[in-house]
């Protein structure tokens, strides 16, 4: 069991900054996802934790010990790579035994531990095969086996599911969650897939351009996104974001864009009259009744619900979520209402900060918040 602390960590490649002033505390036994689009610095962060990259500044500690200058093999971590990185010339058994061998575990004990790990992952019949003779899912299991065989303090997983097909991915997701529960080890998981991050993690660290945007449990990230980027990145279909103007209205605020003019709840001290961004989840729009009118552009049926794309006030596009029973014709006009109690307001710019006062204190409870 070990906690992992990034303290003011910096990584530059030449003039390019991959990770900027990262402060992040991962508690012992926690499952944390590093989430973000490609090039956001999540893999670099993981590789620094593994010891495969060296931070340009700041410190990284595992279990209270600064590991900046510790070789990867001495950090007591295990890593699963996106490509699995199985040794092609070794059998499955030898692949799994390799980290034990490198640590001088005697052969007899090694065989026992390999057999145990193989049984746990249902690899026993495959032990004498080479990686090239295995399917993607089986290779994935071998990579996991190699990681968990020696019971490391911290597991690092770099997009381990991205090379699997959708069905297997869903299955392996559940397996990993179960494995985490069983082993109780700290796990750091890198992904660009927000569904993986949401379903598996205790907390999610969302990154963009080398900066940490928010570090919070999945529900909090979803309900109280720290800024505009997080709001748009988390959730499928993604949140509707509308650029407009914020104006004072007595003691409260109003948001206007084209023909839309809605009251927004109490805002925090950062709010100023002027350009701002309104966010609403597709589920906060209800179709069929209400004072706003929009044109149905597209209806996507997913089976148990429909995702509807609307055109509103000429150029604004909105996505709404309705029940599959609701019958909507493409091209028809439809009335809709907005649940004003579930609106998000953000400052201008790509990472415009959250301006809602509602539960604003909530985010300061979590560590590592930017």
């Amino acid at each position, binding site marked *: 069991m070990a906690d992992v602390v990034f303290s003011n960590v910096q990584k530059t490649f030449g003039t390019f900054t991959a990770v900027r002033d990262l402060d992040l505390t991962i508690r012992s036994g926690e499952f944390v996802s590093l989430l973000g689009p490609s090039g956001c610095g999540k893999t670099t962060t993981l590789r620094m934790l593994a010891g495969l990259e060296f931070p340009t500044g700041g410190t990284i500690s595992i279990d209270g010990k600064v590991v900046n200058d510790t070789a990867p093999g*001495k950090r007591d971590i295990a890593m699963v790579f996106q490509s699995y990185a199985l*040794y092609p010339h070794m059998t499955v058994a030898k692949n799994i035994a390799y980290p034990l061998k490198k640590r001088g575990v005697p052969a007899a004990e090694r065989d026992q531990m390999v057999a145990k790990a193989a049984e746990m992952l249902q690899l026993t019949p495959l032990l004498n095969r080479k990686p*090239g003779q295995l399917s993607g899912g089986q290779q994935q299991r071998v990579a996991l086996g190699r990681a968990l065989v020696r019971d490391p303090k911290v597991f690092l997983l770099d997009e381990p599911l991205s090379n699997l097909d959708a069905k297997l991915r869903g299955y392996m997701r559940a397996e990993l969650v179960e494995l985490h529960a069983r082993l109780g080890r700290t796990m750091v998981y890198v992904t660009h897939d927000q569904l993986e991050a949401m379903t598996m993690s205790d907390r999610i660290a969302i990154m963009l351009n080398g900066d940490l945007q928010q570090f919070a449990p999945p529900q909090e990230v979803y309900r109280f996104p720290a800024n505009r980027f997080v709001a748009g990145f988390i959730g499928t279909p993604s949140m509707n974001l509308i650029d407009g103007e914020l104006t004072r209205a007595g003691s409260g605020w109003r948001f206007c864009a084209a023909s839309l003019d809605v009251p927004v709840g109490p805002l925090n001290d950062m709010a100023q009259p002027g350009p701002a961004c309104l966010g609403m989840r597709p589920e906060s729009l209800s179709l069929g009744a209400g004072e706003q009118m929009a044109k149905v552009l597209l209806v996507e049926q997913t089976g148990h619900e429909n995702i509807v794309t609307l055109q509103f006030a000429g150029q604004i596009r909105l996505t709404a979520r309705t029940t599959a029973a609701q019958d909507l014709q493409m091209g028809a006009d439809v009335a809709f209402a907005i649940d004003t109690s579930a609106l998000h307001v953000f400052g201008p710019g790509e990472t415009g900060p959250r301006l809602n006062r509602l539960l604003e204190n909530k985010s300061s409870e979590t560590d590592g918040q930017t």
Partner: protein
Amino acid sequence: MTRRILFNLFAWSIVLAVAFPLFWMVVTSIKPQFELFRRPPTILPETVTFEHYWRLLKETNFLIYFRNSVVLSVATTVTVVSIATLGAYSLVRFRYRGRESLAFLVLFTYLLPSVVLIIPLYLMLVTLGLANSILSLVIAYTTFALPYALWLLRSFMAGIPEDLESAALVDGASRLGAFWDVILPQLLPGIISTALFTFILSWNEYLFALVLINSDSARPLTTGVMNMLVSSFNIEWSLLMAASVMMSVPLIIVFAFLQSYLTRGFGAGGVKG
């Protein structure tokens, strides 16, 4: 149909043209002396004799030259492959200033005709007191085999996923350990084709051996055999052909065993992650 027949005829005539000297070499080496210059010549020998081989082994320096060639080629191959493997690893894995220019500079030296280098190299080796030794040839061959070997291995090395090495490092291997356990086995086809290339090159080399060596104890097969059997007045054809056959045998054996690796090698990058 006729096109196919014509094509086949063409292909076979080329095969025959290439193979005939080899065939003639073998046939001449087993003909008795009196049959050699008969007109019209006999295609297949009427009497088969191994007396030339016997004489070569018993009465001449052939075995010394053969040993020299083996020592020379093996030493050159080991040196070139060791340096080129580590050099290629450095060029592919590490980031440092001048890395690319260094690689191109190495290739550039390969573009110089080796004849240009003989005299300076000879003078240098004389100054070092190494002239007239097998070591001098090892050094000379290394200078012109290394650039090509480095480039060949570099392309092989680039085909090995870096993740493999990272995984070994995380699994507890040192950098050298990861290189030994993971990189080398992956690089094996590349190493074998590079080694073959270097071995053939040093086994067959003539010009440097002629210039740098003039003592019988250090001569390799190429110059040794010529020196021994070809003089201004006489060429010992039967012995020459027997020597040629025996010179070719080691290469043929090596080729036969490593052929599959060699073809894999020339389709470079065929290393699967």
